[in-house]
């Protein structure tokens, strides 16, 4: 099989170039197996990220024939006798197939992806501890579980036309994960997050192209999360007009 791989050495190259490799492949290989074969047997200078090989770590996302794919989950047999592998679109390239995800990490931190609690009084904590601190029923879990399955592979950022156009857009995964905490029965930070969601370059920049959900390898459906987050931000805004904020 002919495999074309993007090569870029920031010390030598002005722009990325493509290098071709001709390799023997096996019927049960994934795309990642082909890259690893080249790295191990043909050209050890190739840089790429991978780890778990079972679609959990989210590190092996790349463009395969122009589409964002998790390469450990994508069978090589889905392609004919040639394949083109590039780094994830919409991210700066660090080297070869490795991209810089610092921008995403900054956006991710902005949505406070952790459980936010109001300061609790000692007597409330005693009552909480008696029934099991922050206990959660299966029905409460199912409300957000789907959105918590995100592995941060960032295929959604590569597919999103808004990210391509406005790099500062918060993007599907960060919003979906923020919304996941807004839906969590143990969390009390939804007002803070909704305020962030109403800021520039967040939920209302999404034009609902739905490409993020099309490419998501974990069926998180980030487009649904973003649009639910829009409604949550609007309801919170409307509440702010008619209800006192209680000093928040």
């Amino acid at each position, binding site marked *: 099989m002919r495999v074309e791989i993007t090569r870029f050495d920031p010390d030598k190259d002005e722009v990325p170039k493509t290098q071709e490799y001709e390799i023997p492949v096996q019927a049960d290989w994934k795309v990642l197996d082909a890259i690893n074969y080249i790295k191990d047997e043909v050209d050890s200078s190739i840089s790429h990220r991978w780890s778990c090989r079972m679609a959990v770590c989210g590190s092996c996302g790349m463009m395969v024939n122009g589409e964002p794919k998790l390469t450990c989950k994508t069978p090589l047999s889905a392609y004919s006798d040639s394949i083109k592998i590039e780094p994830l679109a919409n991210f700066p390239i660090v080297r070869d197939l490795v991209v810089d995800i610092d921008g995403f990490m900054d956006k991710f931190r902005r949505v406070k992806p952790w459980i936010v609690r109001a300061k609790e009084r000692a007597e409330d904590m005693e009552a909480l501890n008696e029934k099991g601190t922050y206990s959660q029923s299966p029905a409460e879990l199912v409300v957000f579980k789907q959105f918590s399955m995100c592995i941060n592979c960032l295929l959604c950022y590569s597919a999103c036309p808004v990210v391509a*156009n406005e790099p500062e857009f918060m993007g599907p995964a960060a919003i979906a994960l923020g919304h996941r905490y807004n839906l969590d029965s143990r969390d009390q930070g939804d007002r803070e997050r909704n305020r962030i969601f109403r800021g*520039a370059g967040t939920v*209302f920049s999404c034009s609902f192209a739905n490409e993020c959900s099309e490419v998501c390898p974990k069926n998180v459906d980030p487009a649904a999360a973003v649009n639910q987050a*829009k409604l949550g*931000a*609007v309801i919170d*805004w*409307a509440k702010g007009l008619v209800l006192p904020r209680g000093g928040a």
Partner: protein
Amino acid sequence: MKQLLLRFEPVIWLLFGAGLSIGTMLLTGFVLIVGLAIPLGVVPADALSYERAHMLASNVIGRLVLLGLIALPLWKGAHHLRSLSIDFNGEARDGAVGGLLYLVAIIGSVGGILAVVRL
């Protein structure tokens, strides 16, 4: 202008969302009946004769439905065109373009309110 749009983004999105639903469902049904079913004789022409249509439209619910049909698709169109403008021009002129488009939607909505009030 960009800051003003950002401040009213929740309202704009609500009107856009409502326009999207109206445009997809009600307006399609409306065009189907008036544009196809009546001319093809599937629905008798006198079903929407002037007197009947006027009676239907001049009660409170009829007026509200008509206002929705007139105003909300304007907000849908304005928001879509603004998104299109961002796709082509980026954020640079978004404030001016968005402001102009929503102004058209506001004028159309006010016109719609006047029209249904004067029915």
